[in-house]
């Protein structure tokens, strides 16, 4: 099998490989998607610690339940859906707030686990990114999640809705909210 092709476009080949529980296909997927998966989970969890465990568990789940991916749609939304479920389990195990809590009107606050700087502050490479780091850390996890899926993964609202199991208007509202918070940082900078 042309594995390089598998991860660049042919989702049916990926589905076939996962159905056959082909370790070589999983390895190619890990190499292709690992950094994006890490980034998504940092946005969802709002921290760096624990991400590696969730990443590993995600790929194990991909290996075990890869048969449920039918190859008819892009691989990324399916992968992030799997990762999201594991992230929720991870938070539940640590007795932290559910990712969906905000839908009940309860604020979703991921309390920092330590006094360490946020992963966003540590990862900022530009002046604008440094300004945005604080705003990002203050956002609800579902809002950060919508932002990373829309602007970093370039997913459609429908794809994001499928990943986060929410209707499109809810997804849109999260993106607007996130944009407003980030934009205020940019506007403040401009006013100075």
């Amino acid at each position, binding site marked *: 099998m042309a594995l390089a092709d598998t991860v660049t476009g042919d989702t049916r080949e990926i589905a076939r490989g996962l159905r056959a529980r082909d370790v070589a296909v999983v390895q190619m997927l890990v190499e292709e998607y690992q*950094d994006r998966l890490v980034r998504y989970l940092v946005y969802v969890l709002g921290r760096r610690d624990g991400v590696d465990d969730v990443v590993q568990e995600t790929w194990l789940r991909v290996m075990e339940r890869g048969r449920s991916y039918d190859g008819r749609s892009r691989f990324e939304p399916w992968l992030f859906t799997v990762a999201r479920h594991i992230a929720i389990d991870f938070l539940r195990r640590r007795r932290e707030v559910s990712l969906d809590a905000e839908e009940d009107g309860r604020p979703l606050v991921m309390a920092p686990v330590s006094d360490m700087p946020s992963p966003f502050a540590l990862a900022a490479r530009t002046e604008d990114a440094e300004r945005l780091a604080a705003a990002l850390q203050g956002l609800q996890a579902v809002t950060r999640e919508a932002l*990373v899926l829309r602007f970093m993964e370039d997913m459609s609202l429908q794809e994001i809705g499928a990943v986060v199991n929410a209707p499109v208007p809810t997804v849109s509202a999260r993106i607007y909210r996130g944009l407003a918070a*980030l*934009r205020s940082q940019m506007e403040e900078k401009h006013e100075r």
Partner: protein
Amino acid sequence: MSAERHEDFEQRIDRSLAGAGTLEDERLVEEHVRSCSACAEYLSASRRAVAGLKGFSFEAGVGLNARVMAAVRERAEQMEARRRWVRLSVVALVLTVLGTVVDLQVGRWAAGFFGLPSIAVHHGLMALWIAPSFGLLLLFPMLPLLSAKANGKGRSI
């Protein structure tokens, strides 16, 4: 320009960035920002915010891919071992049922054909066929333990 009109264009800008806007939204925004500095600044700040997101870089930690693949290979071996035990158990079940049917339906006829006592044929079938198959079948509940032992260790997470 009225505040409502600015708000309308800000919503169009948000919709366009979120991927919910229409081509008409984009066209109207493009025309409008040429003559409205407030909305132009709103659009510019929004674009800078989105671009700023790309200023964050997150990468897998050193050795993470290797750890993940080691765990994946281990899990694949466990799953393969489990499948082997399931197949073996199904074979054992079929053999047990088949042996019992042979004992009940064909044993007496076979005893007569070979000139052997019926009880001897029964004991022979029990000892050589039914009991070993049934013993194998009893291993089924111990499957997870055997799978883990076959791989030398348990789950990595």
